[in-house]
C-alpha cells in the first residue's frame, strides 16, 4: 500500500527562486503533464535562458501581474520513495496569514536562501514561525549557485552564516545543500558542477525526511458530533493520537467522568476491534452522554481548566486590546474567552521583546499570553501533543490569531 504523502513547505524570500525550484522539482521527477510542459515552453524566455519553471505556479491573475505568489497552492509530486504535497508559502509580510495556514500542515520544510542575497528579514520571520509550528525537519537550500559560478568559497561562507543564524531559532537543519534550480544542479542529480559537495541532492534529502506516525501515544479523541442510528447514539470524531480498543475504559474531559467503549462503528466494516490515530470513527459508549467538544482520554496529563498559557501570532491588521472577547477553537472545542494577560510581545524577525506586561498586540507580532475561558477547556502542551496544542482564536467568526499551548 502506498505510503501517505508527506506535506512540506518551501519557505524563502520571494526573489530567491521558490517557484523556479518547484517547477524544477516537478520536471525532474517527471511529474509535469505533457501539455503543461508545452505551455511552459511557450511562455519561457529565449536567448539561451532556461525555461521559466515558475510559470507552473502562476495561476492567479494577480500573481502574474505582480510577479509574486500570493496564496498557498497545493501541488503534488513524487519520487521513487513517496509522494510529496508542497504547500507553497509566499515570501511577503502581508501574506503571513496565508503562510501560517500552509505551514500548519507541513511536517518538514525547505528553507530557500539565495547565495548572493543571503538571509533576509523575511527569512528570519519564517524561521521563527517554523520553530513556532514545531516543524523540526528543515533542510536549507542555497540556490542560484549558477550565478556565482558554483563557488565553493561562497557556499562555505554562507553555510557558516546560516548555521549561526538558525541556532538562535533552535532550528537544526538536516542538511545545507547548494543547488541551482534553474540549471537543475543538485536538485535531482549532480551534474558535476560542484564536485566538492559531498552531501545529498535535494531529492535525496527530501526522501530522508521522516513521516511522523504518532502510533503509541496517549489517547486523544475529541468528539466531533453525535448521530442517532437505530435508537443508539454514535459519537463521531477523529482519533488525534493513540488507539481505541473495543471494551476499553476511558475518561471524558472536561469533567473527568469514566466511560467504556462498547463498540467501534465504521460503515461497511462489521467487527472493528481497534482503531488508530487518524481514523474517523463512530463510538458507542456506556456510562456517558457524549457531546461535541468533549475529549476521550486514557491519561490525566492534559491541561484541563479555565486558563492556559500560550504563544500566539496575531494575524489581523487591527491590534488586539487585552480583555476583548474572542473565541478559542482547538480540535472540536469552541469556547468564549479573552486574553487577560499579555506577558510579552515581540517582533518575530528580530526576536526583540517589544514590551512586557502589555495592553495590546499588534499585527504580525508574537505574544506570550494567558487566556481565560468561560468554561473549562482541554488541551496539551504543543511540544507534547501537537494536535491538542494548537488552536485558532476568532473574533466575530474570523480567524484573528493562531497559537500554541506552552
Amino acid at each position, binding site marked *: *500500500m*502506498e*505510503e*501517505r*504523502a508527506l506535506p512540506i513547505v518551501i519557505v524563502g524570500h520571494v526573489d530567491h527562486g521558490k517557484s523556479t525550484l518547484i517547477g524544477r522539482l516537478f520536471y525532474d521527477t517527471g511529474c*509535469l*503533464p*505533457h*501539455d*503543461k510542459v508545452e505551455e511552459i515552453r511557450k511562455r519561457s524566455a529565449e536567448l539561451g535562458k532556461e525555461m521559466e519553471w515558475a510559470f507552473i505556479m502562476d*495561476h*492567479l491573475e*494577480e500573481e502574474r501581474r505582480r510577479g509574486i505568489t*500570493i*496564496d*498557498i*497552492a*497545493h*501541488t*503534488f509530486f513524487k519520487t521513487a520513495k513517496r*509522494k510529496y*504535497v508542497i504547500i507553497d508559502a509566499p515570501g511577503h509580510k502581508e501574506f503571513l*496569514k*496565508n503562510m*501560517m*495556514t500552509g505551514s*500548519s*500542515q507541513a511536517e518538514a520544510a525547505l528553507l530557500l536562501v539565495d547565495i548572493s542575497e543571503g538571509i533576509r528579514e523575511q527569512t528570519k520571520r519564517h524561521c521563527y514561525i517554523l520553530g513556532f509550528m514545531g516543524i523540526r525537519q528543515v533542510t536549507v537550500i542555497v540556490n542560484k549557485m549558477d550565478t556565482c559560478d558554483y563557488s565553493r568559497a561562497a557556499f562555505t561562507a554562507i553555510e557558516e552564516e546560516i548555521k549561526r543564524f538558525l541556532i538562535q531559532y533552535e532550528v537544526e537543519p538536516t542538511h545545507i545543500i547548494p543547488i541551482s534550480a534553474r540549471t537543475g544542479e543538485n536538485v535531482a542529480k549532480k551534474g558535476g558542477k560542484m564536485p566538492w559537495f559531498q552531501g545529498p541532492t535535494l531529492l535525496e534529502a527530501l526522501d530522508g525526511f521522516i513521516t511522523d*506516525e504518532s502510533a503509541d501515544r496517549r489517547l486523544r479523541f475529541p468528539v*466531533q*458530533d453525535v*448521530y442517532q*442510528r437505530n435508537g443508539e447514539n*454514535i459519537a*463521531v470524531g*477523529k482519533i488525534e493520537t493513540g488507539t481505541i480498543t473495543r471494551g476499553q475504559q476511558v475518561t471524558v474531559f472536561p469533567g473527568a467522568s469514566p466511560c467504556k467503549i462498547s463498540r467501534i*462503528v*465504521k*460503515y*461497511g466494516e462489521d467487527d472493528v476491534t481497534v482503531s*488508530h490515530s*487518524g*481514523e*474517523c470513527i*463512530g463510538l458507542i459508549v456506556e456510562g456517558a452522554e457524549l457531546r*461535541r467538544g468533549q475529549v476521550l482520554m486514557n491519561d490525566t496529563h492534559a491541561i484541563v481548566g479555565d486558563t492556559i498559557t500560550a504563544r500566539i501570532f496575531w*494575524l489581523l491588521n487591527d491590534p488586539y486590546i487585552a480583555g476583548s472577547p474572542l473565541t478559542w*477553537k482547538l*480540535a472540536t472545542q469552541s469556547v468564549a474567552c479573552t486574553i487577560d494577560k499579555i506577558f510579552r510581545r515581540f517582533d518575530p524577525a528580530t526576536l526583540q521583546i517589544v514590551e512586557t506586561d502589555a495592553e495590546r498586540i499588534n499585527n504580525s507580532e508574537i505574544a506570550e499570553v494567558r487566556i481565560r475561558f468561560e468554561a473549562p477547556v482541554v488541551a496539551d502542551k504543543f511540544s507534547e501533543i501537537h494536535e491538542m496544542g*494548537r*488552536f*485558532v482564536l476568532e473574533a*466575530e*467568526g*474570523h*480567524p484573528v490569531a*493562531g497559537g500554541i499551548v506552552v
Partner: protein
Amino acid sequence: MDHLSSLENKSIYIIREAYYRFKNIAMLWSIGKDSTTMLWLCRKAFFGEIPFPLIHIDTGFKFPKMYEFRDEYAKKWGLNLIVGRNEEAIKAGIRCDNVQKLLCCTELKTNALRQIIATYGLEGIILGIRRDEHGIRAKERVFSPRDDNFKWNYEDQPAELWDQYKTTASEDNHFRVHPLLHWTELDIWKYIKREKIPITDLYFSKNGKRYRSIGCITCCSPIDSSARNVDEIIHELETTHTSERAGRAQDKEDAYTMQKLRSLGYM
C-alpha cells in the same frame, strides 16, 4: 496509515464538520466519478443515512446514461434527490451551439444552482472539486465563502489553520465545502477500485474512446483510450500525463475566437 485511507479520513472529517456547522446544507452530485466518490464518502460519514439532500444540476444535455445511473442509485441508496434546472433558460433554447459557451454554462448551471440555493435557503454546498484539476482551483480552500454574486474573493481568503475552518461571518452568502480538495485524479480511481464504487460506464472505452470527464453531451469530447475498466484506467493514468479537462470544450478562448470570427462573417 496508507495514503488512500488518510485521504478518506480527512474527507470524512470535513464532511462531518460541514454538517455540524451548517443547519441547511446540500451536496452537489454531478453523477461524475468525483462527486459519486464524494457521495460514497458521505454514506460512510453518516452510516448509510445521509441527512441532507443531493442536488443534481441538470442542463438537459447530460448523457442519457447519467440520468439512468442517477435514478438507479438515488433509489438504491435512499437519497433525497433534488434536480435543479433553469427551466426558463432551457425553454428559451439556450444551448452551447447557438450561444457562447460561457453564457450557456452560466445560464444552465450557475443560475440553476443559484435558484436552488435561494429556494431552499442553503447555507452551504458540498462540492467535489480537486486541487489538481486546474490552476485556479489549486488555490481553493476547504471551506470557501461565496458572496451574493457567486464571486470568490480569492485574494482575501480566510486562514485555514489546523482543521479549523472558517464557517461563520454574516456577509457571506453561502459557503462551499470541498472535501476532495486534496485528492488527485489517480487517487479517485484507486479509491473507486478499492471500494468498488459504482460509476457510469461512460468512463470506459468503447471503439477506442472513453470520457475522461463527463458533463453535458454538447461540451464533452472523448479521448483516445483503450481502457475498458478501472484497473486499465489506473494503469493508463499512471503512464500518461495529459490534463483531465483536455476533453472539455470549455475553452473560453475558442469561444471568444468563434464569436469574433462570426462577427466578421466567418464560420
